[in-house]
């Protein structure tokens, strides 16, 4: 019985220690974000990696999400005789919720895992220590550019996701199921307000910060060689995805 409580205690202490280290990492990242000089070239390169290279995936998933929404929502609305509201239903679902969340989850799988693996390999091959040994902060070179790139890329990717998704819904609702084009778009214009868009963008900014925070942290503290990199990458994707959904709930409960 004593051993059982000892194990629970050790588990809780380990978890608290990990949480503390994560928040120290976040604090260091924020600190170095405001210490010049900014590695502008690296920020641009990372916008290319996190943002531009994720765009095709976002377009594809956005289109199919919009099309699925078009089908599902149309089916539901016909039960109430309210098919005319297909446009705003699709648009609001995407802009407020699905766009930011699904875009973030997609980028986590594509870019977040790659960030963890890259920094993790740099850690186990002592390249991170090499930066430190030259009196250069690894945060400045490896973490801050990714954070800034994500803060630029995530809202843009979510916006692309939304626009393509609305077109996907249009394709199904108007071209396939026969709703009038004017009804679809005027509904969106009538029901979607600026607050919906800004709420969605705020979510995207938060998710971008979460993905970079978790991915870089997991890479930065990678140990035990190739197996460690593999474990860190898996943990990074699982933790980022979970935190995105948890934080999404908190944001919704504050925003709605």
């Amino acid at each position: 019985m004593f051993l059982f409580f000892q194990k629970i205690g050790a588990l809780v202490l380990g978890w608290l220690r990990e949480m503390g280290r994560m928040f120290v990492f976040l604090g260091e990242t924020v600190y170095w974000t405001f210490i010049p000089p900014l590695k502008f070239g690296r920020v641009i390169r990372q916008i290319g990696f996190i943002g531009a290279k994720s765009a095709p995936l976002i377009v594809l998933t956005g289109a199919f999400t919009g099309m699925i929404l078009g089908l599902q929502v149309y089916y539901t609305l016909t039960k109430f005789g309210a098919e005319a509201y297909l446009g705003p239903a699709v648009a609001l679902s995407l802009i407020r919720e699905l766009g930011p969340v699904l875009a973030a989850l997609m980028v986590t799988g594509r870019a977040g895992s790659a960030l963890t693996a890259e920094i993790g390999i740099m850690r186990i091959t002592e390249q991170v220590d090499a930066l430190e040994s030259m009196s250069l902060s690894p945060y400045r070179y490896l973490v801050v550019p990714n954070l800034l790139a994500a803060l630029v890329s995530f809202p843009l990717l979510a916006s692309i996701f939304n626009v393509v998704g609305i077109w996907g819904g249009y394709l199904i609702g108007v071209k396939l199921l026969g709703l009038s084009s004017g009804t679809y778009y005027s509904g969106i214009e009538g029901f979607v307000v600026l607050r919906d868009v800004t709420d969605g963008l705020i979510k995207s900014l938060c998710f971008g910060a979460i993905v970079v925070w978790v991915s870089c942290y997991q890479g930065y503290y990678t140990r035990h060689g190739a197996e460690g990199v593999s474990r860190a990458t898996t943990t990074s994707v699982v933790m980022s995805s979970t935190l995105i959904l948890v934080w999404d709930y908190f944001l919704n409960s504050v925003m709605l």
Partner: protein
Amino acid sequence: MIQVLGLHKSFEGQQVLRGVDFSVNTGEVFAVIGGSGQGKSVLLKHLLGLLKPDSGQVLVDGEDISQLAGPALYRLRDRFGYLFQGGALFDSLTLFDNVAFPLREKTKLSRRDVRDRVEEELAKVGLSGMGHKYPAEVSGGMKKRAAFARVLVMRPQIVLFDEPTTGLDPVLVDSVHKLILWGKNAYGFTAVIVTHEIPEIFSVADRIGMLSGGVMLEVGTPDEIQNSKIPEIYRFVRGISDTAAVSGGLG
């Protein structure tokens, strides 16, 4: 001068350093020898403040590096160069860009001056014309030499070598040792070398310390270490295994 006083360090309950004491005089080549897993690299990382001790001090000209953080730590580290075991070259950069990296990041040299300095350093370590290659495209020995050029390019006062010859053939081992001695004479740096390269290190080091069981067993000149009466050192410098341990292990 570097002074290590009562250094203790443990990882996840495993005690690696149990009170290490030694000092390194300015301008000398000090070697730390010892078997694998004795904490030599851990000790070296403490000298640069890459690891913080559980207790003890690492004094660099009287300043405790283990108590420093932020700009003060970076200022002291600027006096150091560190040659990592695997070179730790940035694998996304060419050899040229690797050597140029600290110059571009830490100095205001013009593009032309950086190019001249880097080509000069690459030539000194025998890598002329190889600057365009990536670390993955060159041999282990060339990586170490490029890493050495990256260290030298900043003209450090103290250079820490973490097993600089591990994994190299005997000819390369000799060339790396000659390179260290040449660098020391050319630039006048203080060197701390962690190695288990016996007997080659006896012709390179001014003084040697044997690290075992988390403590510095003995510090002395190469002659003193070679003639040490401490059984562990006697066996280590002659490459004799502990027969009692071996027979015990075999049951």
